[in-house]
């Protein structure tokens, strides 16, 4: 059997960073090969080179033994390489069939294409209606569109970038069955992830990247998750810890909260109820796009709620905007760091003012106290180990992990009574993630009521006292996190929705 794809010495440098340094490995036909690495290890750059989006500075690739230098994605697709993106390459306002046609070289007439989509999607257990508008689909369904788009072109190599972050555990099971079926049919899969258990169950081989270099390769089935973690991160990480404590009084109470989404393709919140106590961490899981942004907006005051639906120690605060809520120490950190939690082109000093103006007393009679603001920004940088040349640097110049430490630190230092964080460690490297989780736990230990909204179930199990899941804008009743099984969590997240196991016969 000849090697399908051979990668030899690929190197790609960007100003100030070598994204890939002399990377080599190979994939056999039908192999499920994992590319394992932290955020920033260079996985994305590598697959972009394979898919023809980025040209390598050095090194070469062969496909079926022939030199392979895709000048553009079109050439890659023609050679039998297909890719499912992490941030979907879909068009909200177009329908499923149109989206799929855009990813094909010579799509058949729309009616034939629709029939083909139905056929293939049924066959692989990924049902899809070709005429639906993509913007109305759930995250899981959107991923199906991407997968079907690839499958319709009979790829020899399918690249999947973090595919399970948008799926419930049940849906992950089904996806894996589909992938195994594809692999049995001879399609190789390059599977990119930082989730170790998944890789151990699914993959035949693994290449581990750290800081742009291949540091190791192995058969993941023969390694334990902690061995894989050590290879990926380079050091042993201590999981966050905190002493056991009894939660105190109820601080925040949300009752029958229903809010219509401002975004035409967003998810409206439906009848959400929960409470959080002093010193307690409530973890809210769920697949992205099930109302996480809307819930954060309703808690931050960016979207106003019915007054009685949100209460702080019995006082109704649903009608309060973001700044009145800051006055009473209800603080939030949104998911989108650049453009929501922070203004990309503004300095860290100005970004410190963005939410700190009220509680830190940085404004008097409308006039700004810049020296005090600088001191506040510098104390965030110092206490949360934000790596930057100085507080005068623009937010966009920071790495994801450092900016996230700044954003979380900015709220933590303001001594919140309630802190709501959405996706605290999304796209953040492991050491920064560990530091952020620890700071959240420390805050809870000091009596703050904390709500963590996250897609990362491992993270939620690690830090939450109680767990609830968002599914299509509804929140499951919170349950104690300890002792919950993946099965139970998956059902709280909505189970497998309408996916079904891939049909046995091809």
């Amino acid at each position, binding site marked *: 059997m000849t090697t399908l794809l051979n990668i030899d010495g690929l190197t790609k440098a960007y100003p100030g960073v070598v994204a890939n340094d002399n990377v080599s490995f190979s994939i056999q036909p039908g192999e499920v090969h994992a590319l394992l690495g932290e955020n920033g290890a260079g996985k994305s750059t590598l697959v972009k080179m394979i898919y023809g989006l*980025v040209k390598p500075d050095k090194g070469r690739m062969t496909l079926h033994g022939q030199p392979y230098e895709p*000048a553009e994605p079109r050439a890659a697709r023609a050679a039998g390489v297909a890719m499912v993106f992490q941030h979907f390459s879909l068009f909200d306002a177009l329908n499923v069939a149109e989206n799929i046609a855009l990813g094909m070289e010579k799509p058949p007439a729309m009616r034939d294409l629709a029939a083909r989509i139905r056929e293939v999607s049924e066959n692989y257990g990924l049902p899809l209606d070709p005429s639906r508008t993509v913007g109305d689909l759930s995250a899981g369904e959107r991923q199906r569109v991407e997968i079907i788009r690839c499958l319709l072109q009979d790829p020899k190599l399918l690249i999947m970038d973090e595919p399970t972050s948008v799926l419930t555990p049940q849906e992950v099971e089904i996806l894996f069955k589909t992938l195994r079926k594809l692999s049995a049919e001879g399609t190789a899969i390059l599977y990119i992830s930082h989730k170790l258990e998944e890789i151990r169950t699914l993959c035949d081989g693994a290449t581990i990247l750290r800081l742009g270099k291949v540091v190791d390769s192995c058969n993941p089935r023969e390694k334990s998750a902690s061995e894989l973690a050590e290879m990926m991160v380079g050091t042993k990480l201590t999981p966050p810890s905190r002493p056991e404590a009894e939660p105190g009084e109820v601080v925040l109470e949300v009752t029958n909260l229903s809010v219509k989404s401002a975004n035409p393709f967003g998810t409206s919140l439906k009848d959400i109820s929960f409470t959080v106590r002093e010193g307690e961490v409530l973890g809210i899981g769920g697949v992205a796009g099930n109302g996480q942004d809307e819930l954060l907006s309703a808690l931050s005051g*960016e979207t106003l709620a019915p007054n009685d639906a949100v209460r702080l120690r019995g006082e109704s605060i649903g009608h309060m*905007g973001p*700044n009145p809520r*800051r006055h009473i120490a209800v603080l939030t950190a949104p998911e989108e760091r650049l453009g929501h939690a922070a203004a990309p082109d503004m300095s860290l000093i100005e970004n410190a003012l963005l939410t700190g103006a009220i509680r830190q007393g940085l404004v008097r009679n*409308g006039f*700004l106290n810049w020296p005090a603001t600088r001191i506040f920004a510098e104390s965030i940088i110092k206490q949360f180990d934000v790596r930057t040349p100085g507080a005068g640097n623009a937010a966009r110049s920071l790495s994801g992990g450092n900016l996230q430490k700044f954003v979380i630190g900015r709220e933590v230092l303001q001594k919140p009574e309630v802190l709501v964080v959405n996706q605290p460690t999304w796209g953040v490297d492991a050491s920064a993630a560990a530091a952020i989780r620890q700071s959240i736990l420390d805050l809870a230990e000091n009596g703050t009521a904390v709500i963590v909204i996250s897609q990362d179930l491992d993270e939620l199990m690690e830090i939450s006292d109680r767990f609830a899941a968002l599914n299509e804008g509804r929140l499951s009743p919170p349950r104690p996190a300890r002792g919950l099984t993946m099965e139970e969590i998956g059902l709280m997240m909505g189970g497998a929705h309408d996916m079904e196991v891939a049909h046995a016969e091809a």
Partner: protein
Amino acid sequence: MLRLEKRPTPSRFWTAATPVLAVLLTMIAGGLLFMILGKDPFAAIRTIFWDPLFNEQFASYSRPQLLVKSGPLILIAIGLSLGFRAGIWNIGAEGQYIIGALCGAGVGLALYPMDAWFIFPLMVIAGALGGLLWAMIPALLKTHFRTNEILVSLLLVYVAEQLLASMALGLMRNPEGGGFPGSRNLQQYPSASNPELIAGTGMHWGIVAAFIAVIASYVLLNRHLLGFQIRLTGQSPRAARFAGVNPNALILFCLGTSGVLAGLAGLFEIAGPAGQVSIDFNQGYGFTAIIVAFLGRLNPIGILLAGLLMGLTYIGGDLAQFMLGLPAAAIQAFQGMLLFFLLGVDVLSNFRIRIGKTEAA
């Protein structure tokens, strides 16, 4: 091939240097344009940029003109810059300028021939209110119906021009003017005129107002929460919402302020240099001020300098028309070119230009 690479932090050097570079590029391109028109490019550039200030023959007349022309440009551009920073595009300052002038002049003409100290202040207030009123139309339509303020403010310029024509030919026509269009000359009505404050400088109340506006907007943008909110909204509307900014209040403030300043500019012009309500008293200051605002990088000090430069091109253009027979339109094209070059070289402040292989774009 050239390739653009985003800078992690905007370059301070290029932020300051791009307007200068743009002016130089415009001089070169403008020189070429004048050459095509059969004029000596060096003479033309010198006539436009040098002679009005330093040629002994003309300077005594044209130096005071510099303030007269620059004043309204600066005043309007300061107002526009606030909105432009917040991503609120008032491009109908010309209309607000006209309505401000009409309201102010209307008060003065209505009180003719009364002689009282309060007439001119009253006209100033009326001018400001007129500009405000005209700017509130796009503002309220935007806050209530999300109507595009660019189109509404611009279309209202045409409406304002028709109103001006109607006033100049009808209601405000000078009853003693022998049937000629145009109102009484306010300069000959001391209680209502905006006189030259220091003889031979061109300084009038409008210039004073422009300087005050420059200082006030500098303080607002750098020291005041509202200025911070304006900048934040322009850069990142979602972050602004998160920071508790009320977008509707900001729209009303930005459009309102620019309307007031444009209205004031109109009033000072009509009570001063222009003197009377006539069909074409407006000289397109409202549009040129857009160029001034960008050339000054939406920065108050920059706008002050840009306003002076642009005022110079007006005077220099007149001079070049008189001396070299350069058509007036050439200056208009020249000013448009300047804005193009400015926006084009602006890329340098946020991107590095690399020469090398291209990526698949």
